[in-house]
């Protein structure tokens, strides 16, 4: 391919980029975060501030029959008691994102119902009943203990399969009419391309009672699928099932909110979430218009994904509770949760039954998936919920069909807190490893044999790339070689159960081949990649105003890099303005200003577009002042130069440009599909899944204790092009550790008789530490095939997701037996017949 074809992105070679893909650039938040100067949500303290606790339901399903708060009200130091029956509290249930808020994305049945502050709870630990504001938290805790409640305790169900049995306790018993497929019908009516994928809604549910707790029952089929023919074409089939335990979606900083009313009736609040809260939800909860909120965004002490408080349940209640208590007292109120109060979990708990047909050379001919999973919130990702998505996105497997039944449970909210794609990765890993073992090869070989997209082989993908000016690089081959060479894989790999080590342990390896799945830049309706951004110039500096994202992808520095490069400014001349002010609410939580998933990449197009606008304005004004045309000028190193004579330059700061601005809240989906790829909008999903990744983990299993030790981990990711290399490596590294933690040890445990969580703390809920996995060897491959600026693509979710699939496969390679997720000692020993 001629070199010029690699210049599809803005005509720039990598070596021409000054602020992009360069190491050693100081993170803009580094000083704050390493010196203690940074203000996090928990740090916020206002003069006269009160502290509040919210009651959490001790039962898995219960209603308050009577509530006596008199003793709490009488306790010295208590300033206000907010009861569920206070006229101030709206008597309504909010079903997650309300249809009035974002009707094109969400539905009334989007997720579990959440009272603003109600009298009924559908899971243990749900906020309800009463909130208390006091001089300090100790008094608030003491007062809460004085509240007397008479409960009506109801039947509950916390097991997916039991919830789906006839006669199971009714989780949401107030719902008499419920259409479990309403959302999906709406969502897919506008986003699925019938040529490649079809959705079937199980008949018989519409308009019926919410029997058996079924939230949805859907079948997903790759276009052209003929399972019967696919299995007939196979030399053999494998049928298996596996279970996945519930995983916690915690945030290291326990969540809190400070609320204060201004004299003119505005509700000012401080929340340390990663993303701009969806004020429309808070508007419904508090009962004031969106423009009456003044949000502030202190740093976030860690959180998965780009979620904001308004999307987290029960955390969303902090705003109305804080607002009403502040209204009652006339003082600022800080609502503080405890670790046990944080309740949200990953969405893939359940059981998965799979049948795969394959040929003796490793070619997979058909896959059938039947899943029963815990309630999930539907982001329209049906293929993900059936687990077939990653076969469609990065393989040539021609026949893929999955059915997913999602059950409501008396458990807290389930969501994509640690990536909804995990179940896709897990099923793909299980299939690849099993087929590889059956035909005597490794998973990388299976990936190469079946490499492709939407049932087509790589010729289809190559044709797509060539037709769309994307470099036609063998991404899988490169990442596979890179990862394998890093661990000497081909010399170490062995058949399952044949890796006995001199120390008596069993050596195991798992190779996970997958792709960058880019859901944050998907071809869904155009709310994606929409972001409010304001650029201005003053004194030779460019000031960027927008929500300051605060998560690992380091959008604050990354966006400044892109602006500097786009405009020709020195990086030090591009600054974030007023970073602690969340200036604007987004229409949905995905639009989180460079937060989680791949939104940094997709939103970067907004940054590019806006920077171009401002640059053109500056050049036009400069041209007028210098008596030339803007076409004759350019900006280089923060100077206006004449293209014909770069030595003839004028510093930007010397020009009277103050007040010049560019504002963008435009839809960039069309921009990058139409302008970048020169393809119709919405495009084929093919554009999104062409970068490949490989993770390899090496373990030693102690057959006498069931202990599984990770001894080596390698990640090789085709990142397209890294905007900030150290940050990209951080995402790869941290994601891998969190993924191995998910598949290796994490599990929320409930008491079956009461539905109470038994490990709502970080002593009993285990997360891998750096002592358990001290190093992940990271290799970035830069193919420039990504869908983002400079040919970049997302990285935030990848390794976290892929590694969440790998530990059972590694243990299988070591022991020759399969265990479910997570691979804890009791599961390993039981599989080995020793427990």
């Amino acid at each position, binding site marked *: 391919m001629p070199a010029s074809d690699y210049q599809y992105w803005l005509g720039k070679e990598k070596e021409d980029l000054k602020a992009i893909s360069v190491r050693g650039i100081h993170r803009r938040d580094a000083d704050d975060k390493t010196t203690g100067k940074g203000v996090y949500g928990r740090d916020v303290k206002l003069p006269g501030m009160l502290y509040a606790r919210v009651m959490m339901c001790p039962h898995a399903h219960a209603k308050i029959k009577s509530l006596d708060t008199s003793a709490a009200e009488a306790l010295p130091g208590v300033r206000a008691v907010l009861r569920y029956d206070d006229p101030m509290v709206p008597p309504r249930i909010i079903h997650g994102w309300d249809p009035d808020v974002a009707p094109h994305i969400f539905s009334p049945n989007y997720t579990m119902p959440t009272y603003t502050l109600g009298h009924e709870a559908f899971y243990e630990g749900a906020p309800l009943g009463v909130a208390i504001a006091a001089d300090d938290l100790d008094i608030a805790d003491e007062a809460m203990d004085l509240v007397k409640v008479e409960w009506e305790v109801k039947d509950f169900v916390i097991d997916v399969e039991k919830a789906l049995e006839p006669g199971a306790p009714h989780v949401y018993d107030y719902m008499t009419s419920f259409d479990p497929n309403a959302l999906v019908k709406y969502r897919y009516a506008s986003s699925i391309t019938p040529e490649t994928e079809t959705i079937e809604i199980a008949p018989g549910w519409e308009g019926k009672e919410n029997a058996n707790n079924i939230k949805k029952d859907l079948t997903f089929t790759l276009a052209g699928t003929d399972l019967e023919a696919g299995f007939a074409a196979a030399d053999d089939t494998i049928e298996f099932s596996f279970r996945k335990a519930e995983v916690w979606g915690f945030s290291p900083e326990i969540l809190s909110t400070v609320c204060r009313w201004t004299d003119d009736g505005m509700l000012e609040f401080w929340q340390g979430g990663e993303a701009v809260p969806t004020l429309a939800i808070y508007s419904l909860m508090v009962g004031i218009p969106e423009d009456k909120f003044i949000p502030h965004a202190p740093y976030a002490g860690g959180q998965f994904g780009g979620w904001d408080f308004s999307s987290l349940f029960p955390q969303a209640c902090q705003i109305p509770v804080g607002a009403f208590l502040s209204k009652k007292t006339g003082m600022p109120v800080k609502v503080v949760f405890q670790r046990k109060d944080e309740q949200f979990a990953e969405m893939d708990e359940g059981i998965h039954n799979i049948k795969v047909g394959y040929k003796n050379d490793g070619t997979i001919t058909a896959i059938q998936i039947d899943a029963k999973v815990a309630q999930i919130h539907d982001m329209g990702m049906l293929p993900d919920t059936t687990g077939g998505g990653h076969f469609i996105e990065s393989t040539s497997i021609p026949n893929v069909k999955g059915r997913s039944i999602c059950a409501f449970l008396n458990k807290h909210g389930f969501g994509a807190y640690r990536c909804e794609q995990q179940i896709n990765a897990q099923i793909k890993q299980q299939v690849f490893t099993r087929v590889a073992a059956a035909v005597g090869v490794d998973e990388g070989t299976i990936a190469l044999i079946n490499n492709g997209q939407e049932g087509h082989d790589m010729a289809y993908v190559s044709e797509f790339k060539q037709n769309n000016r994307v470099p036609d690089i063998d991404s899988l081959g490169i990442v596979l070689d890179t990862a394998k060479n890093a661990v000497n894989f081909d010399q170490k790999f062995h058949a399952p159960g044949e890796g006995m080590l001199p120390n008596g342990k069993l050596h195991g390896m798992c190779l996970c081949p997958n792709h960058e799945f880019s859901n944050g830049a998907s071809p869904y309706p155009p709310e994606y990649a929409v972001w409010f951004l304001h650029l201005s110039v003053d004194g030779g500096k460019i000031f960027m105003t927008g929500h300051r994202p605060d998560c690992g992808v380091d959008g604050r520095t990354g966006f400044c890099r892109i602006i500097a490069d786009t405009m020709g400014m020195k990086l030090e001349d591009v600054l974030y303005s007023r970073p602690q002010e969340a200036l604007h609410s987004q229409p949905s939580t995905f639009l989180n200003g460079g937060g989680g998933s791949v939104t940094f990449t997709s939103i970067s197009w907004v940054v590019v577009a806006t920077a171009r606008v401002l640059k053109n304005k500056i050049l036009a004004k400069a041209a007028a002042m210098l008596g030339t045309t803007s076409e004759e000028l350019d900006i280089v190193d923060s100077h206006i130069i004449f293209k014909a004579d770069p030595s003839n330059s004028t510093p930007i700061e010397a020009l009277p440009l103050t007040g010049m601005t560019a504002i963008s809240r435009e839809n960039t989906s069309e921009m990058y599909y139409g302008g970048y790829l020169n393809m119709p909008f919405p495009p084929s999903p093919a554009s999104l899944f062409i970068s490949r990744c490989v993770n390899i983990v090496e373990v030693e299993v102690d057959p006498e204790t069931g202990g599984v030790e990770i001894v080596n981990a390698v990640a090789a990711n085709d990142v397209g092009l890294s905007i900030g290399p150290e940050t990209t490596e951080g995402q790869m590294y941290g994601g891998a550790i969190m993924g191995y933690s998910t598949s290796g040890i994490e599990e929320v445990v409930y008491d079956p008789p009461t539905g109470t969580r038994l490990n709502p703390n970080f*002593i009993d809920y285990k997360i891998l530490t750096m002592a358990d996995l001290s190093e992940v060897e990271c290799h970035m491959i830069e193919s420039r095939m990504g869908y983002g600026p400079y040919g970049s693509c997302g990285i935030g979710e990848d390794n976290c997701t892929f590694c969440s699939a790998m530990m059972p496969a590694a243990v299988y390679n070591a022991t020759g037996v399969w265990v479910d997720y997570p691979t804890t000692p009791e599961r390993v020993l039981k599989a080995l017949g020793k427990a």
Partner: protein
Amino acid sequence: MKRFLHVDATTVEEASEALAKGGAMAIAGGTDALGTLKDNILPDYTEVVVNLKTIEGLSYIKEEGGMLKIGALTLLDEIAHSDVVSSKYTALAQAASRTASVHLREMGTIGGNICQMNRCWYFRNPDNKFNCLRKGGGMCYAMMGDNRFHSIFGAVKACIAVNPSDTAPALVALNATIVTNKREIAADDFWDVATPGSTVLDEDEIVTEIQIPEPAGKSAFIKFAIRKTIDFPVVNCAAMVGGGEARICLNAVYNLPVRATAAEEAMAGATIDEANAEAAGEAAVTGASGFPANGSNPGNKYKVQIARTLVKRTILACQ
């Protein structure tokens, strides 16, 4: 937390008097006590917290009179890094070095580690959600619930919580004596199932010193936990084998540290080798059964296998 009176004791006597008034708890490093207060796990909240760290003279490690003496307020980190403990009382140094995490070892004391309350996620569930037997309630919820980390040797007073201390089995294996302001107690007799405590100490009794005779043979400690740091043990084991003597103790498998007497008898005077150690491991779990899997509860029979293995490996480590 709720409010309580905090008393900085300057002498053992002063601390004892404060504790004798009732409704009080002692605090040293605070790594266990603060957690119980923050999580509000007990039915009656502590009214007075008596700080022992302000008592001078209780932090030391010295050999004296043919024995090792460790002050009750000595930090676990100091014990882990003590040359004399590592060289001659190895099991204790190894146990201290495997307790919790670096930061917690720099706060936690040996006295606190042996006095910590037993672990059970029902007993310690926040806000006293399960008013179990250890709290004076009517039932053991773990018995019918999820008991994957609980006792494999049955119940004591119908409770199946486990003693989680890492240093406790080392002290038993090393035949230590616990000195208090009232008496001297053999480590073998120090732990008991109280409500809600885990020792035989009176309400106003305070550990002041640990005494360990010079061991006849080598000693070792091995811990099995889910993670390499922070975690409480799934099972741990300490052994001292040599000089015709064997003392072997398991912990986290029962309400109390468990002397593996059958294993000791098997190893007394025996050669330390794979076969003998394996036989001792098998003997150690005689009588252990554990709970079977039941629905989402995997049970804890796997702990029997781990205990068997740890006894064998700990004995071999005494070579």
